[in-house]
């Protein structure tokens, strides 16, 4: 479904040049969920943004369904790939009601029967019609994230890019959102790329994942391998270790 080949993203020029992503390659099969983990600034978000055209691709190729994407992206692309952002507080227009937010993509693509589709989208993400005319400030973080998911799904895309969809949420709410995502994927046969710094979250949703560091893919592994703690890479190992909570004994710090 998705094929990323030697992706390279460079921001800025001259002294300010940042190689945010260097030579990252991976493939995601149709209907699969793929994880990207790594510490802050390792280029996870940038990969997603590059795929959907929000970041400049300065090298490599991105293929969706076997065809290379065009720059700028065309309408079919937007109907195939959608994204959910990290911060539910920032990803909804503060002056638009849920209704307006959900109607916008339908209007852009000239879709009919908007009324029904909005109601349906809300149902799909487990929200009642009473949420329809609320403003974002009248919603909790988890509800906002659901709206964001509904907005991404309303055009019936095949691929969903999830950029830390739960990291701004409380643990209890996180569980709800993760459950929802899991359920939707199975129901609609979606393909996911999930970005997170939380190994447990990635392992929960995804089968395969790529560990990233400093813009490079360090290791591609599977959720199962993570659960068994079998990582070939030191860095992955230290991530696994850290995610199990604080320990008093001194661990060999990963080289910075």
């Amino acid at each position: 479904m998705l094929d990323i080949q030697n992706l390279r993203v460079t921001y800025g020029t001259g002294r300010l040049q940042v190689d945010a992503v260097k030579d990252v390659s991976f493939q995601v099969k149709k209907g699969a969920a793929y994880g990207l983990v790594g510490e802050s600034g390792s280029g996870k978000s940038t990969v997603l943004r590059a795929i959907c055209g929000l970041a400049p691709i300065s090298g490599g190729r991105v293929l969706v369904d076997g065809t290379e994407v065009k720059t700028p992206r065309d309408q079919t692309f937007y109907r195939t790939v959608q994204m959910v952002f990290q911060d539910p507080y920032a990803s909804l227009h503060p002056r638009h009601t849920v209704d307006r937010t959900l109607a916008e993509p339908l209007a852009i693509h000239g879709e009919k029967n908007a009324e029904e589709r909005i109601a349906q989208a809300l149902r799909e993400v487990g929200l009642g019609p009473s949420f329809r005319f609320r403003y974002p400030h009248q919603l909790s973080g988890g509800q906002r994230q659901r709206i964001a998911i509904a907005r991404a799904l309303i055009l019936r895309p095949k691929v969903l890019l999830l950029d830390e969809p739960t990291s701004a949420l409380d643990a209890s709410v996180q569980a709800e959102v993760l459950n929802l995502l899991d359920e939707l994927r199975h129901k609609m046969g979606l393909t996911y790329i999930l970005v997170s710094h939380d190994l447990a979250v990635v392992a929960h949703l995804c089968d395969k994942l790529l560990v990233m560091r400093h813009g490079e893919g360090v290791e591609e592994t599977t959720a199962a391998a993570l659960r068994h703690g079998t990582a070939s890479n030191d860095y992955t190992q230290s991530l696994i270790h850290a995610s199990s909570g604080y320990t008093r004994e001194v661990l060999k710090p990963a080289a910075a």
Partner: protein
Amino acid sequence: MTKPLLEVEDLRVRFHLRTGTVDAVRGVSFQLGRERLGIVGESGSGKSQTGRAILGLTPPPGEVAAKKLSFDGIDLLTASKRTLRTLRGGRISMVMQDPKYSLNPVMTIGEQIIEAYQAHAKVSRAEARDKALAMLEAVKMRDPGRVFALYPHEVSGGMGQRAMIAMMLVTDPDLLIADEPTSALDVTVSMEVLRILDELVAERGMGLIFVSHDLKLVSSFCDRVLVMYAGRVVEELEAKHLREAQHPYTRGLMNCLPTLAADVRPLPTLNRDPAWAL
């Protein structure tokens, strides 16, 4: 454990807002010795406001009431502003959540540490400088001399948080309140920061209140844990007994986290019982 360092009884914080009155903290009581006390709870449960109320830093529309709020025998509720100021930063300190926002962007890190030190110790600038450098070293800063002259925006999050810790510990406080000191940091970095805190508590024997929403972390880091919900303490227990928690809220929080160890699907979610908040 002798006389407790901090005694809090029936602490209440409320905000009178246009939209009504918000009871942020509703009758929190606990005692703290020279130990690590964790406070956990979901967002908005009143963790931070509890910490701030102890320091007397409840933001303007808020009002604080308590049956007892005393630190080392000093009544914090009736203490003069002056006394409070000498306590603040001197004997009680607080490490805040996000170094990006809690360091003054237009002062160098060194200056800010010196300022904190000189506010409580009558020392020359040179002495203060030496002390600041020593502090930076104590928090495992690799090149203290360089970091000293940097501005907050020139350091990474981890370095900033360490600088913040150095700044707050420079006066050798007896009590440190750490309000989600690691939530803005990477897992690997946050481990380092925690380690530093841990060592300092161990070495200096100070009391630590560790505020976090991460149950897993608190249980592994602290001695004792308070679980807050909607402004009250719903459960207080030894950290190592967290798994055996009684309160359904605590249990729910524990269970709804995905773990590497077990693949539970769907994840259990929390069904809030309105009775918890009463």
